[in-house]
């Protein structure tokens, strides 16, 4: 009896050993759970578009969140302390760059005290570095030209070709930071590219409707979209980037629209449409409010849906 007790005490019977192993397994599994969770890369993005593409590439190996909302002007996000907490714990901070976030990003990065996401850190990811840019000013640049972006137009995600470039950049950086996930990131990127390519085949007919048609846009945010769709932007509601329309500018714009036959005014949901309605009344044009980002409108829940929605709505109005 004494011997048996000792035996149990040391190694136990076969049944008790299996119970012990199960308990040990459960304990190890429980103990490892937080580490598994922590092993996910924490990715914070400045916009919902980068967020969705990051999620597509990172899959369940990353934990993604975003700062700005799709229905918000990305230039004017508020640097809330709650965002500082997000960045404090981030492994990757992916942002559009080209000074789009200049009004709030420095406060958040300085406040977060996280070396990984500061300039030069392993998680500091300026997505614009992967993009061929439009509207890079030539010659002298100053603020008499409006709220000009001296490094180029930052609204590049509205071209699906750039969406694919962004996905590739995410794959590269995620693989550097998490080499064990390389195969998964590569497969996810390929799936994303295939999905966009398939969608592009779907909307090819709609693009044919849009190509060459004159339109007016509120802000320069639709330049890349125009480059992709072939629509011809003949004027902007803003006389200069970031400067609200003036009466004299609108008078000139109305003449331009009449001359070129532009029948659509494209604008984002966060601008006041009264001015656009005024111009539309005087030209017989239609005001088309398009979401510029994922989540900018109900049902536009991912990047592919965003491009599909905007192209489809534009083609519908232009046809």
């Amino acid at each position, binding site marked *: 009896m004494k011997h048996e007790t000792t035996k149990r005490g040391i190694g136990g019977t076969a049944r008790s050993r299996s119970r012990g192993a199960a308990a040990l397994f459960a304990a190890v599994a429980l103990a490892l759970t937080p580490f598994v969770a922590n092993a996910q890369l924490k990715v914070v993005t400045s916009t919902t578009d980068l967020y969705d593409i990051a999620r597509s590439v990172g899959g369940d190996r990353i934990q993604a969140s975003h700062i700005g*909302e799709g*229905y*918000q*002007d990305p230039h*004017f996000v*508020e*640097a*809330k*302390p*709650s965002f*500082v*907490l997000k960045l*404090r714990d981030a492994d990757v901070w992916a942002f559009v760059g080209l*000074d789009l976030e*200049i*009004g*709030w*990003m*420095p*406060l958040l990065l*300085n*406040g977060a*005290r996280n*070396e990984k996401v*500061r*300039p*030069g850190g392993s998680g500091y990811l300026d997505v614009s*570095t*992967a*993009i*061929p*840019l*439009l*509207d*890079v*000013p*030539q010659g002298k640049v100053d*603020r008499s030209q409006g*709220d000009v972006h001296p*490094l*180029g137009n930052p609204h590049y995600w509205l*071209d699906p*070709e750039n969406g694919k*470039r962004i996905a*590739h*950049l995410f*794959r*590269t950086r995620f693989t550097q930071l998490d080499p064990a996930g390389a195969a998964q990131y*590569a497969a996810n*990127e*390929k799936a994303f*590219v295939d999905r966009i390519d398939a969608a592009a085949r779907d909307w090819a007919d709609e693009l044919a409707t849009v190509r060459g048609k004159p339109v007016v846009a509120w802000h320069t945010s639709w330049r*890349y979209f125009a480059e992709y769709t072939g629509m011809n932007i003949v004027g902007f509601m803003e006389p200069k980037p*970031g*400067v*609200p329309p003036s009466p004299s500018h609108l008078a000139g714009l109305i003449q331009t629209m009449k001359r070129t036959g532009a029948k659509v005014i494209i604008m984002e*949901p*966060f*601008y*006041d449409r009264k001015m656009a309605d005024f111009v539309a009344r005087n030209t017989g044009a239609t005001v088309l409010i398009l979401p510029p980002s994922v989540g900018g409108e109900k049902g536009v829940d991912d990047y592919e849906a965003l491009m599909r929605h905007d192209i489809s709505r534009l083609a519908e109005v232009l046809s």
Partner: protein
Amino acid sequence: MHPHITAAALLALAAVGLPAQQMGDTTRAGAARADSAARADSIRIVRELEALSAGASSDSSARPVARAGSSGPINPRLLPDISAVGDFVSDLTPRGSTQEDGSRFAIREIELALQAAVDPYFRGDIFLGVNDLEKISIEQAYLTATALPAGLELRAGRFLMPVGKQNTMHRHDLHTVEYPWVLQSFLGEEGLTGTGIWISRIFAPFGFYQELQAAVVDRFGENAEGVATLEPVNKKLSGLGYSVRLRNYWDLSEASNIELSASAITGKRAQPLVCGVASEPCAGDDETVAGVAARQTVIGADFTYRWRPLRQGLYESFILQAEWLRQMNEDDPEIPAELALADARYAGMRGASSGFYTFARYQLTRRLYLGARVDHLSSSRDGDGDGKLNAQSAYLEFFPSEFSKLMAMFEHTTRSGTQFDFPDLGPGRHANRILLQATFAIGPHKPHPF
């Protein structure tokens, strides 16, 4: 020609021609790539390049990405960001200017800022203030350690003291022309700065943002004008200025949030002494008034509510802010023996004073804001009698762009007692003031204050 020789010659030509053709493709691609880098609108060229690369490799991950527009660092000389803010004020008060120098139009200040990363461990910020009265002064200059663990941040140098809400903002960034009366009275007309060490830590044990800021500085503010002590007020460590502030922040919704904070600062300040039967100021060295170091402590709490709907955030917003401060003074500081023998008596601040302001600002249009502020100050300083100041002011703020601001202010003040006689409000209990302000910023885009 022998068929074998012909075939061999053709093969040799092909062998030579193939690399030549490949080289030609490579050269063309290289030239196109260089061209694309030089041109701003290069999307089509880049797409062609990518198509060429895609032909060479079906793996999309191998696709090279050209970056148009710039081909090197943006700031190859590693120059700091240099910016300047101009602050122009006009005082159109009917009874005369209420400005310190009596001016009707003045450049209140030009602020020059130099900011850059120093090395991988530190960031440097220098703010110089230039105005007609003080010429040039170091407003702030501090080194920030950016590589500390555990959410810590350390600053060394001169900085705006983390006391109260508005004192942490530059004066030209305020939504009013001047600091609230309670801050001007307790912390100084231009806000309170300190030279020393500042440390802060962010944390969120309860699920919301908290930040603890503490600072130790050379001294608490400036001495009373013309007052000198026999020994420096900071001769002992207890004479240094010590401050602490706890910030708490909550998101109520995606459009609204509140911040509730508490602050305290304590230190010794030079206060004047009087001598003789007539209670004249005791003469000190070099035409100064002899003074004594007396402890002063200020505690406070502040509250800020912000509302800005995300969809219409360019056109609509609202801020409600309130701040309460209480100043407590040492009533009977120890007078040095040599001055006590000369019958020197304490004539500095005594008792306690408190005050608050409430400020609200509503956005009328994309560029126009309407604000209002209510100020109250009261004192129960022993020997001085009670004193009160009440003020109501209204503000119209217009932003032509993010980089310029025009503001008009009307203020009505009511005073009793003699303790709140700043800046020359003139005789009588009531005074109306009209101020106009224009500020402008040049240089790199700065973050929007939050």
